[in-house]
């Protein structure tokens, strides 16, 4: 539990990117049926470094570029899965997976059930949530809710190197279910302290992950907001003695109900922080779990934090209002813990999230 995060540079740490590259490499090395297909997987940039060099190592029949044809290529991946391969498909922006909703929702999600269990669809669709700067309305979405609404798909949002390693390794090994993963662009450069050994990963690859224990407020967060929640938690523990419990939802399609409900039962206070819009999103879904189980556990209204209910604007000033921030998260936690917006707790001074996480500079 409590696998710690460090946003720092060090040779002993593992970046999100390295974890991705390692899982891709090992899957290809381990299993000859694995293929990696996607626009640019074989170029010198290699999906932000997560596939660089793999085409050279494993050959162009196993790691290959594809035409701009997201729906068709998803259909090809499904067919390839039925034919005995394990396809890993990439979208450099998750927004492009929206071109493949027919294959993902009408075909991939249903192929097993619709035919009475006679097929399995082992495949992984890797997509990148595009926040960096000025990405605008079409390169900034985070459509996990769209896919998690549909039975038959496994939807994950790795928040750290360890969740990538554990999840991808296990899934690619098991080869049974179709998975769509949302990787966060800003996390690629973040270095995480590596678990010393495999058994330190304590959880099922598809469960939620208890990232921090605390008695005062439960924060259920996704993706990069897990890091933000942990930063807020450390700040509030230090400055105000508020102890925040942070649950990394990790698997939006299969949240760990017991973990979440147990935590809410203890703290009585819930914040949901998600990378997407709140309406019909993770915020809504977690509220449903609580409402169906025991809403009386809530000692205060739930606070939900996500993208503002609008498309994403490009201007920095608007973008910083559009996205959830560490400051806002800290403020909301403090207000909920203290029961008042006038909590008087000093908030962390921060530039926008993109500035904090972005070691890279320039276009994408």
């Amino acid at each position, binding site marked *: 539990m409590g696998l710690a995060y460090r946003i720092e540079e060090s040779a002993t740490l593992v970046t999100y990117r390295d974890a991705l590259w390692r899982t891709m490499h090992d899957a290809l090395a381990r299993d000859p049926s694995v293929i990696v297909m996607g626009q640019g997987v074989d170029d010198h940039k290699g999906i932000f470094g997560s596939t660089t060099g793999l085409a050279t190592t494993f050959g162009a029949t196993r790691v290959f570029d594809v035409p701009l044809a997201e729906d068709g290529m998803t*259909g090809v991946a499904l067919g390839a899965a039925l034919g005995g391969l394990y396809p890993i498909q990439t979208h450099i922006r998750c927004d492009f997976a929206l071109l493949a909703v027919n294959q993902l929702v009408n075909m991939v999600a249903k192929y097993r059930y*619709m035919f009475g269990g006679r097929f399995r669809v082992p495949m992984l669709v890797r997509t990148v949530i595009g926040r960096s700067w000025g990405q605008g309305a079409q390169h900034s979405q985070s459509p996990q809710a769209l896919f998690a609404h549909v039975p038959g798909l496994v939807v994950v949002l790795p928040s750290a190197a360890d969740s990538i390693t554990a999840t991808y390794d296990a899934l690619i090994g098991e080869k049974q279910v179709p998975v769509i993963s949302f990787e966060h662009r800003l996390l690629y450069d973040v270095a995480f302290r590596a678990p010393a050994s495999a058994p330190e990963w304590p959880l099922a690859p598809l469960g939620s992950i208890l990232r921090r224990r605390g008695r005062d407020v439960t924060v259920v967060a996704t993706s990069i907001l897990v890091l933000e929640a942990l930063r807020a938690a450390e700040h509030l523990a230090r400055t105000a003695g508020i102890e925040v419990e942070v649950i990394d939802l990790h698997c939006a399609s299969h949240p760990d109900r017991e973990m979440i409900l147990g935590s809410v039962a203890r703290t009585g206070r819930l914040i949901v922080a998600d990378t997407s819009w709140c309406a019909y999103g993770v915020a809504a879904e977690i509220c449903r779990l609580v409402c169906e189980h025991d809403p009386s556990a809530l000692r205060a209204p739930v606070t939900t934090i996500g993208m503002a209910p609008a498309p994403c604007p490009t201007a920095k000033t608007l973008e910083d209002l559009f996205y959830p921030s560490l400051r806002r998260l800290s403020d909301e936690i403090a207000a909920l813990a203290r029961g008042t917006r006038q909590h008087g707790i000093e908030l962390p001074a921060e530039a926008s999230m993109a500035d904090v996480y972005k070691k890279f500079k320039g276009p994408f």
Partner: protein
Amino acid sequence: MTTFADERERLLYQALRIRRVEEHIARIYPSDCIQSPVHLSLGQEAVAVGACAPLRAGDRVFGTYRSHAFYLACGGSLREMMAELFGKATGCAGGKAGSMHLTAPEVGFMGSSAVVASTIPNAVGAALAAQRLGTGAITLAVFGDGATEEGVYHESLNFAALHRLPVLFLCENNGLAVHSHRASRQSYDLMHHARGFGITAEHCASGFDPMAVRALVEMAAQALRAGAGPRFIECATYRYAEHVGIGDDHDVGYRSPADCAAWRAHDPLILEAARLERFEAAIAAEIADAVTFAAASPWPEPDALLRDVA
């Protein structure tokens, strides 16, 4: 075992069997024992039996919601198909598929989709797998003329051609998508269009003749097995029944009874009825058995509802 004078007779027998099965479905449909929409292939049977004849074990076929014919031509179990239509646990998909999603992977019939054109890229993907795994198998993508209007068709042809995949694109061109004629939907010629991707394309004008279809598919299959890249075959055909359901709709105005009569005038199942008569009894018995099997089979257990989701 039924014995045949020659391959043509064998294929006609298969086509006849499919026709009688669908006619029987139409006959019992009003009783509501089949509670699922049915898209009949009446008139189109020869394409299916001709196309499946040259296939070998390991080859794969992906179909559409109109797949009774291909399912049976591949060798799918009639009992399991009938039970599936009845929504029974013994159906080929345990009662979860109905008529629109038949499947028989044990004989290579990989599934069928009610979303037009959706299985075309799946077939391409299966061909990719066969190529990469070196199985030597080929894949048939079966679809209607209307399916070619969907963007994914374009994407599928392009990718298959780029990678020289062993996939045969087989278009059942009955000239209609529901009630729309091709001219109101398509500005391209199907064969010319496919050739634009460097895909060898052939046309079969006599889609009523299983041997004609067979010959073209056989040739294409050889090329595919030799690694010559994807092929396209357009088979002219004709749908006797309404788009979905069991009725005949030549009276509602979108097509003329004369066209139907013209097709029937070529239809060997009609023209050679006397010669095929000797098969009728066995077919009828087989159908009766399948219906009995379906009727007697149990409904799926409630716990099947949440089984095999993910």
